[in-house]
């Protein structure tokens, strides 16, 4: 059922809807299990395979709006906003990887880099939670990638 038209707004609407769902699931997961998975990062990485840069920026800003809960931009939010575009441009310019396997690798790298930059010590203190959250986030990212791939073609 892949759309052969370059329906950018349709893609954006789908991604925004998935980002909203990812945010909701993140909150519910935290309520149930006490830890916070990275569904939002996983959504951004998967979206980078299917969106053009202007649309991708809108999704990144939308997710920052959802998670920016204090009245100043924290270092974590800044890293969250920078990492996915770095993945986006790395894929465009340096190494044009594609496919669901590379989506998993990119998601994993994004999560590791995010915690490595913002809270390496905290991640080390809670290794089992970190790996548990990462595994769940990778599964979510794989599902989202398949969903996007069902409707649209990857942009290379």
């Amino acid at each position, binding site marked *: 059922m892949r759309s052969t038209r*370059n329906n*950018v*707004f349709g893609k*954006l609407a789908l991604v925004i809807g998935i980002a909203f769902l990812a*945010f*909701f699931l993140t*909150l519910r997961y*935290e*309520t149930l299990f006490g830890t*916070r998975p*990275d569904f939002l990062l996983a959504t951004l990485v998967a979206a980078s395979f299917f969106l*053009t840069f*202007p*649309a991708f*920026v*809108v999704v990144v*800003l*939308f997710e*920052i*709006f*959802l*998670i*920016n*809960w*204090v*009245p100043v*931009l*924290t270092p*974590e*939010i800044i890293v*969250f906003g920078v990492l996915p575009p770095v993945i986006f441009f790395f894929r465009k310019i340096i190494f044009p990887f594609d496919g669901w396997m590379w989506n998993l690798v990119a998601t994993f790298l994004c999560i590791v880099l*995010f915690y490595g930059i*913002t*809270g390496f010590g*905290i991640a080390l203190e809670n290794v089992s939670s970190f790996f548990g959250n990462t595994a769940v986030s990778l599964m979510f990212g794989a599902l989202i990638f398949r969903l996007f791939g069902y409707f649209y073609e990857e942009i290379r």
Partner: protein
Amino acid sequence: MTRRGNVIFIVFSCILLFLIFWQPKAGWSFREFLLGNTIQRSRNPNGILLENDALRAELAKLQDIKNKIEVWSPEYFAVPVYVGRYPFNLRSELTLAAGRNEGLRANQPVFLNKVFIGLIKDVFEDKATVKTIFDASWKSAVRIGASGIEGLLVGGNQPTVTLIDKQADVKEGDIVYAAFPGTPYGAAIGEIKSARLSQNQLFQEAEIDFSYQINEVRAVLIPKP
């Protein structure tokens, strides 16, 4: 990608940037809506104070304290708390949605239902940060139970009372209360969960049981000056 498409994305981006920098509370309200909470409920001081009755009954057991000191019963005002920073729900710091404009000052004590949870650290015009007892660098004098056993509260993920006299009779359920300057004497902190000898065998140490989850705090009480 057409020019029209690019313009529309730029407009969306500008709207989102405006919301992020000038209306971050909108994201917070949205989150509270999804979780089924409302800011209005957390701002209701009467609702918060009513929950305190059970703890006051517990504190009434400390007859030694009530007989010896004047009962401290100031007026409070309720201040909403911003949800913790993404992605870490750090317990060591809270950000309050009030600051100098509302009369807050550094080192003011902060309470949750009259249970002491920390001191205001930094104050800005319309926000302030609180250093909680879950901060690893937290150290303050406390007393335990009706007999007022002295100890040192050491902060961290699991705050502990240390330097307790080896011979002191510390029991599970004994109330731990504040006994240091800058905080109302006798302000409840928690209950003793378990006590054991310290590693050097010279003192006792005790873990504290808290009747709240610091991650779920949505509003605090600050005593009016």
